[in-house]
């Protein structure tokens, strides 16, 4: 496709190999070779090389050697070790949290260094000791859940009685009970004609 469009085929390896061969052979294109890439590469290879003048070399040398530190001084230290950004974030975050804790403690009137009040410890301790001693009471002393979704009569219904109808708990769906199948006993009932036959008066004989 590329040959049809007039462009050389895309093969960097082949181009590099051909260039190597040509450059080793003396940097001359073989006769009949008209690959524009090879021509460009050879043109670059044979391009004039800018060379600094002796005066320029001397000026640059003087400038470089002037920058060398004198032998009496200690060599300049290398670049400072860089601090990873994650560490900076962690340190700043910890500092901010500590600051917030100090501010909250100051507002509540108790410093975070103060010990926890005694009654709190005592209450917690009693509860746990009891639970350890009487494991069967564990259920009884289980702390209540704050949110009970199936609570039937929430406290606000007592507070706002008008809402009672609206928030009446759902009634159970009516489900007709299935009747058990009981095969009925058939009592003997004489058929009508049998009854009639019994009660019929005897027919007069001809």
């Amino acid at each position, binding site marked *: 496709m590329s040959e049809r469009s007039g462009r050389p085929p895309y093969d960097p390896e082949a181009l590099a190999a051909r260039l190597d061969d040509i450059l080793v052979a003396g940097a001359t294109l073989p006769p009949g070779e008209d690959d524009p890439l090879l021509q460009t590469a050879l043109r670059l290879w044979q*391009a004039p090389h*800018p*060379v600094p003048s002796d005066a320029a070399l001397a000026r640059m*040398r003087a400038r470089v050697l002037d920058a060398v530190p004198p032998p009496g001084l200690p060599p300049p230290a290398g670049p400072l070790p860089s601090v990873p950004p994650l560490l900076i974030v962690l340190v700043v975050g910890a500092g901010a949290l500590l600051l917030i804790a100090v501010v909250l403690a100051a507002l509540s009137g108790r410093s975070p260094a103060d010990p926890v009040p005694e009654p709190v410890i005592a209450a917690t301790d009693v509860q746990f000791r009891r639970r350890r001693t009487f494991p069967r009471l564990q259920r009884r002393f289980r702390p209540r859940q704050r949110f009970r979704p199936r609570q039937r009569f929430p406290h606000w219904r007592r507070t706002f009685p008008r809402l009672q109808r609206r928030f009446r708990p759902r009634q159970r769906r009516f489900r007709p009970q299935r009747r058990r199948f009981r095969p009925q006993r058939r009592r003997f009932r004489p058929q009508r004609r049998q009854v009639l036959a019994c009660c019929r008066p005897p027919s007069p004989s001809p």
Partner: protein
Amino acid sequence: MTQLELELVIQRAMRGDRQAVAILYETFVRQIYRYVAYRVTNAADAEDLTAEIFVKMLEGLPGYRQTGAPFEAWLYRIAFSRIVDFHRRGRRTPQDVPEELPDDSPLPEETLLEKQELERLRAAIGALTDEQQQILMLRFIERKSHQEVAALVGRSVSAVKTIQHRALVELAARLGSPEKVRHYLRGGGQT
């Protein structure tokens, strides 16, 4: 200079030995100057940038670690970043200092042709990406092999060949065929 000698010189230069610094300068100044001179428009800028690169090398020597990569690669990296900085700053000095070419061309016509060819190549190379410029410079101006170029730029050999191919395609499109250029130089009036 062998690799071992070069390492010893580098260690002496790291300790602040002026003579070792001078040896490093003499060893690498011409190739660094060539590398720079193809990327900037005039000789004054090239000289200034080359001196800056070696001063940066001095400043960075205490932190230099020999990791097995050639010292040249580190030096070319400094040169590359200095040139990118230079173009980013957009510094332009007037072209009052003439381009200096080797004095082995006695005829002024040849000098003129060489200067024009150099300008044309410089303009075409300057339109490539930084990486393409670097690889073409090392491969064809510094005449290094693919393996050496790969070690200097820190890429694989196949990546270097691919970039070289793309760069040559781009450059050929910008330069046109050499026949047209020769015709123009003879005074044909066409490019």
